[in-house]
């Protein structure tokens, strides 16, 4: 069969270097297919076969091809391309969004070129090999190396390639799922067959409910309950009862505790106990809100998007950032996003392909994909991505983690919202498609070898420009008072958005009114689809016309789905037939919460055995190149971290932009002096040994990042993101309980309330029957108010002759540190913060910064004092540092090696202005601090222990050691 469409492939002129072609050659070689010549990559367009050649040529010259540097190859319908076997074509599967094709069709209208009635366009990529190639191998290897088989299909250039057929509308009738007479096994079989991820107890509760109702449930009723009760939406584990036992080293129970609702009694408890008046909204909306000024609040949320990113790193991370941005848009009556964060956890860089678990991508490919996804979504949204990190650990190889955060600015009067009975339920933004079906239940299940092939529908493809339009229109509508409530469509799609907004009211929805990307969706798919870029709002009927006009100008599609009621029921109709009629009480309160067992093993208490003799000249460069320490500038440069013009302390700092900052500082309003400092803390290596200490350290790190930059520790809010394994297993849940307790204790000690949070459980991977968990991973994100952005400091050294001061005590504990990893030390005690002194240290440092004593400041984290000092040198304009380890605050028993590389929390290396040391001293009084050296000209880092020189390295050496990509 020959192709029925025109193929147009636009390649760079042959005289120009094709970087994408070179990258393709490298990707094929990495997969075991070396080529002897290069590849030319083409932007491909499939055009309807009924067009005339002349029409196609006009389209190419006026619209598709670059006028200067591209040449077009046009293959007519039915023609067989000579040498087609040397070209690999990769295109999206049917139903996967293709925004560029959409834009192309619209641009054709601008040129007055009409497409045939009902015809569409598709885009694809072509890879044309110039040298000899085995076609079969190219297809087999290329499909994976150059495409993503989950969402894309590969062809050879000599194969038929037609446009995807147009979907046919389906007129499904209500379908019931008889379950009243089934036993537990049969109920569980239904849960599995429908991918509901409901447990046996939950299926029994549902059965009881419908027995009492005297009828069978419909498919969409079951789907709705599965979404609403999913771990992703309901957080059953963290909000359920738990019996916790702590074991000692011999496996004997030494402590036991009970929680009725773990989250409420730990994380929420801390916030409640603190409840400062500058917290305007906590744990009840899509994001927490704190005060920046009396009138302007800051909305904060961090989300995870782990499982979708494992299947499609690019789409998964992009829609992760897109989703958390919608959380901010859906906070109160809408906040304006002004900054984003991202944290990635992936496997090790040097992993061999042969050692990868089946069905997983190489960690480097995952990392490149997730970075590109955040880049392309965040940059298009025009929101600066300003903070984050990359963690490498073998435990993430099959289950990478993607955290995406967003901050928004919201006037105080818009913080509260409430839909009213009679308000219209309005959807606006993107259309509904089959993308993201079962995302909520999928994310609540472990990944497995077949995930790649069977869960393709869970992948979501982003279209940031559609979301940008939604953002623009939503904020105008908010300022014109056009809606009473708004929320985003996240996991669970309309089912969650309408279900949550109508929880207290009841809602009626006509599902056939939802605009679809393509025909053929059944009503339950429409209801739970997680198609991106959609928001739901409650609109008083009197405001509808004005909102419609506004949306029409802004090119945003708006649809009335139904109305909010006052009968407390969820009623769904499909072309008039009722397909769902359930009380909101049962949906939101009916989930059974069994008591779970949690068992924690003992954390190592043995002292860290640091090596005695170390060649620091060799070791420090290696540590600077450790994946946790190495420069992430290559990532940051791909993000537009300056858009909106408010980034006043950048993620990479100094004259050459090479010095890693602690907290980034962003001004949401260019006309005001205030800003926010943003920091992140995460210690999975420590958490494997001691989840309590690691969690406290992560919180300490997030706060010390913002305080180091000039953030106010007394106006600091924090956010938790728990990523754990399967907490139905007591050992997994045991470490989670300890982490939650550490959250409670640290938040209370530091006076930093949690204002929002999210958990992602079941980060496990089944392979060959063995179940593996990721390392327990708690990400803490801190946001501190900065009263005056002029009073902030960066990390690069500023002036020769200034003092260098170490703040905070260094202990011997090195468990879970980068150096312990490097030296392969035996597991040992993990350091932990001193809750009594840490808040005073933060307060004193903040006073020193705001009073102008501090020229530069860097917190001590991965790699300890040695790395912090090196980074301050790297970021500076040719300055160096001379530091005496004997003088740092530490007990005499702490060796020089520990002083250099230990990762004790609550420590800083501070550059104090030459004439300000006395003032600084007055602020710190009896707190642990010591002047340990000076800033010097010449770019040399010199470390000594008393009179013994330990190391002398120049800035260029340090920088090149730090600069290993990925």
């Amino acid at each position: 069969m020959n192709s029925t469409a025109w193929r147009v492939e636009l390649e760079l002129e042959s005289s120009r270097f094709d970087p994408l072609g070179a990258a393709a050659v490298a990707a094929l070689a990495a997969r075991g297919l070396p080529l002897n010549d290069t590849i030319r990559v083409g932007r491909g367009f499939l055009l309807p076969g009924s067009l005339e050649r002349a029409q196609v040529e006009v389209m190419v010259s006026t619209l598709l091809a670059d006028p200067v540097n591209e040449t077009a190859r046009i293959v007519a319908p039915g023609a067989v391309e000579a040498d087609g076997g040397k070209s690999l074509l990769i295109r999206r599967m049917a139903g996967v969004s293709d925004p560029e094709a959409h834009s192309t069709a619209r641009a054709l209208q601008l040129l007055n070129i009409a497409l045939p009635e009902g015809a569409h366009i598709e885009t694809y990529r072509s890879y044309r090999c110039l040298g000899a190639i085995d076609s079969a191998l190219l297809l087999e290897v290329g499909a994976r190396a150059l495409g993503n088989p989950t969402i894309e299909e590969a062809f050879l250039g000599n194969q038929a390639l037609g446009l995807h057929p147009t979907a046919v509308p389906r007129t499904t009738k209500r379908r019931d799922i008889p379950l009243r007479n089934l036993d537990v096994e049969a109920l569980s079989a239904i849960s599995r067959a429908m991918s509901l991820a409901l447990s046996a107890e939950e299926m029994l509760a549902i059965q009881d409910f419908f027995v009492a109702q005297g009828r069978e449930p419909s498919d969409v009723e079951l789907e709705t309950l599965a979404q609403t009760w999913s771990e992703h939406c309901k957080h059953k584990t963290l909000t359920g009862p738990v019996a916790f036992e702590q074991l000692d080293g011999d496996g004997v129970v030494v402590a036991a505790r009970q929680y009725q609702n773990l989250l409420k009694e730990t994380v929420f408890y801390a916030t409640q106990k603190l409840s400062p008046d500058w917290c305007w909204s906590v744990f009840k909306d899509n994001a927490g809100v704190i005060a920046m000024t009396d009138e302007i609040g800051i909305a904060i949320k961090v989300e995870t998007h782990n499982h979708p990113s494992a299947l499609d790193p690019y789409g998964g991370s992009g829609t992760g950032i897109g989703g958390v941005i919608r959380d901010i848009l859906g906070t109160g009556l809408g906040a304006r996003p002004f900054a984003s964060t991202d944290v990635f956890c992936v496997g090790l860089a040097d992993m061999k392909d042969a050692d990868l678990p089946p069905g997983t991508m190489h960690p480097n490919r995952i990392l490149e994909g997730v970075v590109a996804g955040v880049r392309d979504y965040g940059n298009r949204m025009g929101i600066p991505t300003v903070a984050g990190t990359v963690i490498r650990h073998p435990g993430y190889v099959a289950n990478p983690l993607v955290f995406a955060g967003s901050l928004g600015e919201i006037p105080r009067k818009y913080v509260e919202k409430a839909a009213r009975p009679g308000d219209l339920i309005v959807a606006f933004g993107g259309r509904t498609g089959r993308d993201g079906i079962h995302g909520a239940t999928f994310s609540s299940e472990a990944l497995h070898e077949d995930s790649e092939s069977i869960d393709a529908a869970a992948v979501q493809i982003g279209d940031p420009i559609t979301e940008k339009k939604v953002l623009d229109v939503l904020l105008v509508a908010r300022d014109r008072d056009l809606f009473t409530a708004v929320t985003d469509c996240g996991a669970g799609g309309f089912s969650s958005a309408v279900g949550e907004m109508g929880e207290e009211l009841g809602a009626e929805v006509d599902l056939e009114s939802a605009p679809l990307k393509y025909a053929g969706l059944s009503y339950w798919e429409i209801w739970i689809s997680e198609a991106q870029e959609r928001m739901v709002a409650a609109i008083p009927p009197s405001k509808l016309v004005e909102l419609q006009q506004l949306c029409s100008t802004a090119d945003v599609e708006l649809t009335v789905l139904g109305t909010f009621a006052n009968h407390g029921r969820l009623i769904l109709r499909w072309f008039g037939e009722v397909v769902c009629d359930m009380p909101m009480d049962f949906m939101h309160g009916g989930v059974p919460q069994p008591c779970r067992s949690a068992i924690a093993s003992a954390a190592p208490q043995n002292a860290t055995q640091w090596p005695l003799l170390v060649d620091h000249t060799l070791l420090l460069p290696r540590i600077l190149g450790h994946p946790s320490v190495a420069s992430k500038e290559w990532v940051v440069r791909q993000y537009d971290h300056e858009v909106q013009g408010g980034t006043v302390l950048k993620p990479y700092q100094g004259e050459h932009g090479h010095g890693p900052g602690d907290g980034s500082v962003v001004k949401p309003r260019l006309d005001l002096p205030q800003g926010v400092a943003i920091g992140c803390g995460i210690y999975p290596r420590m958490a494997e040994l001691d989840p309590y200490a690691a969690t406290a350290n992560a919180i300490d790190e997030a706060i010390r990042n913002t305080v180091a930059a000039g953030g106010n520790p007394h106006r600091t809010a924090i956010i938790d993101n728990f990523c754990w394994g399967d907490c139905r297993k007591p050992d997994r849940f045991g470490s989670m309980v300890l982490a939650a307790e550490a959250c409670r204790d640290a938040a209370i000690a530091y006076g930093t309330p949690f204002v929002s949070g999210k958990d992602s459980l079941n980060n496990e991977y089944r392979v060959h029957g063995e179940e593996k968990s990721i390392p327990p991973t708690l990400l803490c994100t801190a946001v501190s108010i900065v009263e005056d952005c002029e009073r902030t400091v960066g990390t690069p050294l500023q002036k020769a002759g200034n003092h260098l001061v170490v703040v905070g005590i260094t202990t011997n504990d090195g468990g879970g540190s980068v150096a312990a990893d490097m030296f392969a030390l035996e597991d040992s005690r993990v350091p932990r913060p001193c809750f009594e002194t840490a808040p005073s240290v933060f307060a004193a440092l903040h006073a020193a910064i705001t009073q102008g004593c501090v020229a530069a400041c860097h917190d001590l984290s991965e790699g300890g004092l040695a790395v912090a000092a090196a980074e301050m040198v790297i970021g500076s304009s040719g300055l160096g540092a001379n530091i005496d380890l004997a003088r740092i605050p530490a007990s005499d028993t702490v060796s020089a090696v520990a002083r250099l590389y230990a990762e004790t929390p609550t420590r800083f290396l501070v550059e104090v202005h030459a004439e300000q040391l006395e003032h600084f001293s007055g602020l710190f009084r009896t707190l642990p601090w010591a002047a340990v050296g000076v800033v010097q000209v010449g770019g040399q880092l010199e470390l000594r222990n008393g009179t013994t020189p330990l190391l002398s390295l120049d800035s260029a050496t340090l920088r090149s050691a730090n600069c290993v990509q990925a």
Partner: protein
Amino acid sequence: MKPRVLQLFTSGINCDRELRYAFELAGASVKVMHIRELIENPAAIRDCELFAIPGGFTYGDDLGAGRILGLEIARFLATELEELHARGGSIFGVCNGFQALVKSALLPRVEGVKISLTWNFSHRFECRWSRLLVAPALGHVLPVGSILPAPSAHAEGQIVLADGQHDVARLEAANAIALRYCRADGTPTSEWPDCPSGSIGAIAGLISPSGRILGLMPHPERNLSALHLPDRGAGAWGTGQEGVAFFRGLVAPYLANVTS
């Protein structure tokens, strides 16, 4: 009355807030209009002295950055924009706005030069600070030979010319080159990282022979204070006043007109 800036808005524009703020700092009043409103009423352009297109990713950069917006401008707004220019008004585009000016053929207005803006040589989006050497053609805005520091943040900023260096010479002869990427010492360069894109002739910005249609890739509207600078005003990136001076220079002719 203040000089009036009409600032274009459409799907994907995202540098509108800071551009507006920069013009206001420079003493102008700014009105923002969606392209759909302007297409319905292009005569609104008659009520401004300066027409500005901010940066962003209009229409997702689909089919090439600025391509679709360029088509829209050429088809619906070009007549009014030419009239604005003819009566002494200015047109300014930054980043994606510059790409749209080039793709709508409002720039560079030099006979026989075939130009495009394409992917950076690295084929990556790059966000890093650049130094821009002021060419004689921009002497009415900033001192010739001075350096305007500004962050670059783009993926498709490489200027390519059909006739390579010959076309560079033609642009130079026509006084169409406004700004060049340069090193710290002021030497123009097309080399990364001082030039993020590999742009031919180190070209960062183009200007019409009239001096009133100007476009550039980097973002001077993100350099409005010493706090914005990578070294926070230590000296390697200027004083933090250069960006404001640039916008004052754009607005200055109309300040004089309006007050006199």
